[in-house]
């Protein structure tokens, strides 16, 4: 038994270490991407189509642009858009989910209908449609991704609040005359907040992937910006001529970033969830 206890303490610590490391890496990528954006746009026709080497780790493209700098700039852009859209959609989910649970039957029916509606249109089509409505570009991507990702989290929050409303300790607090505001602050918020936070972090991976996808299809960021979707859609033209590094490394970097976010969210959930916090 003692051996197991030792193990669990280590696991908690290692989780926290992992969280810090992941956050530092992601922050470093974001900052370096902002700094390298200029270099990623720089063309130099004396060094076109170079295979990855020590000097150019990710190689160069047909305009002599350094793919490492372009990839980092693209990732940074993706992460920033991901943060923005995840926060907006999680906020929407919180407001609508709570409203559905609190404002009575009619509001609940309307909001649930909206959730079904948004979930009925295939995700990528919906992002495309919203992006078109906003005239594509940066605004289109941000609006498209943030307005299409809230339904599932809203459903979770609605269920939680509904359950909480009839929980014995909330009912008891009401009978004891605790004010509504105090009930929300002291009894409901501590329960909802961890779920909301992890829900928000687990939205990042989806947001980033969908941003890259719509940009790849041509509905997102303009082709001058070094976004991952743009890089990959450009690389498509050079695939058959054997320029594999144009597609391989930027995509791999994107996958690693998304995995890091997904693991971050998963670990955080385990840490915050009382049922598994002491495993």
């Amino acid at each position, binding site marked *: 038994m003692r051996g197991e206890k030792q193990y669990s303490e280590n696991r908690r610590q290692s989780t926290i270490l992992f969280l810090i490391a992941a956050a530092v890496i992601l922050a470093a990528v974001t900052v370096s991407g902002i700094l390298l954006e200029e270099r990623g746009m720089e063309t130099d026709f004396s060094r076109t189509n170079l295979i990855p080497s020590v000097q150019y780790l990710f190689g160069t493209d047909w305009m002599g642009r350094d793919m490492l700098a372009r990839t980092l700039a693209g990732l940074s852009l993706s992460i920033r858009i991901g943060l923005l859209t995840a926060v907006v959609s999680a906020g929407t989910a919180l407001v609508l989910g709570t409203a559905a649970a609190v404002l009575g039957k009619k509001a609940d029916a309307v909001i649930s209908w909206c959730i079904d509606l948004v979930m009925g249109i*295939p*995700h990528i089509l919906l992002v495309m449609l919203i992006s078109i409505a906003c005239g594509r570009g940066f605004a289109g991507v941000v609006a498209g991704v943030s307005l299409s990702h809230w339904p599932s989290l809203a459903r979770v929050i609605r269920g939680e609040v509904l359950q909480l409303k009839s929980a014995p300790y909330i009912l008891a607090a009401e009978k004891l005359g605790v004010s509504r505001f105090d009930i929300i602050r002291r009894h409901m918020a501590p329960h909802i907040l961890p779920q909301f936070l992890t829900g928000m972090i687990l939205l990042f991976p989806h947001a980033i992937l969908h941003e890259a996808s719509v940009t790849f299809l041509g509905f997102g960021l303009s082709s001058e910006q070094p976004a991952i979707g743009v890089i990959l859609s450009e690389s498509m033209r050079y695939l058959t001529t054997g320029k594999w590094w144009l597609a391989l490394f930027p995509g791999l970097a994107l996958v690693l970033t998304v995995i890091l976010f997904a693991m971050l969210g998963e670990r955080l959930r385990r840490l915050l969830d009382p049922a598994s916090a002491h495993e």
Partner: protein
Amino acid sequence: MKHRLQFTAKKLLRMALLLLGVSFASFLLMCASPLDPLQTNVGQTALGSMSREQVEKLEEYWGVDAPPAERYLGWLKDVLHGDFGVSLLYRQPVLEVIGQRLANSVWLLLAAWIISGVLGLALGAAAGAFRGRWPDRLIRGYCLLISSTPAFWLAILLLLVFSVWLGWLPVGLSVPAGVDAAAVTLADRLRHAVLPALTLSITGVANIALHTREKMADVMESDYVLFARARGESERSILLRHGLRNVALPAVTLQFASISEVIGGSVLVEQVFSYPGLGQAAVTAGLGSDLPLLLGITVITSAIVFGGNLAADLLYGAVDPKIRRRAAGR
């Protein structure tokens, strides 16, 4: 029986309302767009060199000047008569375009849907049964990796490996280029559909497997499984008789809920492989501001998704003896 009919009718009504909502929402979104269809399709220079009358004619063709409310009601009236309008880019009735494209896509979608469902169920059940041991870790790792991989990048990778590098499979399209339509064989079509279908199947597995795993792990920790073990039932029989039967119900839901994902993925994958399916048509329509076609595709794919949900609800009754008995008792 009466109860089931009522249930179905209610669901159908809700579905019709949702479809109405979908069409209205997508129409609004497309109307709100600041993108000028004339600019994107005719081009600035061509417009400049045209006479006033020609421009007006074009504006009428692309429906730029009519008020949105009138256009939507007109569209809705036609749809109720079975007419989805004429695609502006393809100059064919929308239903015809969708029919052709869907005929290309449907085998792709169906194959991916079935393979990812079966594989997802098997992997999820295995991971749940071996919770915490190496098969579980392996499958969970695979799911994390796949769910973090954009479908279009996976498509590019497979294209690189199997078409460019190994040269086993064609690079794109659904039939060999430059061959007469009559001369195309079934084998040709299959060869062109392998990579898109493979990509879609690989990406579809993750979600189903992870959810099935949760459920399976719950079942394996339940009292009745403990009792079955105490009774001396073999692990195999426990899995088949208690595990799989209890996982079947959520698996049905997951399987039908994944339709939306498969269709969404096909938009990306078809674009990479230049596969002339429904997804590619959606992208073309979106980029070219072809309102009738995009609207038609959105409404029809949503109808497929809602139809899937309905099928899942109805299958529940058939699969779950508890629901079946309750329905019969009324």
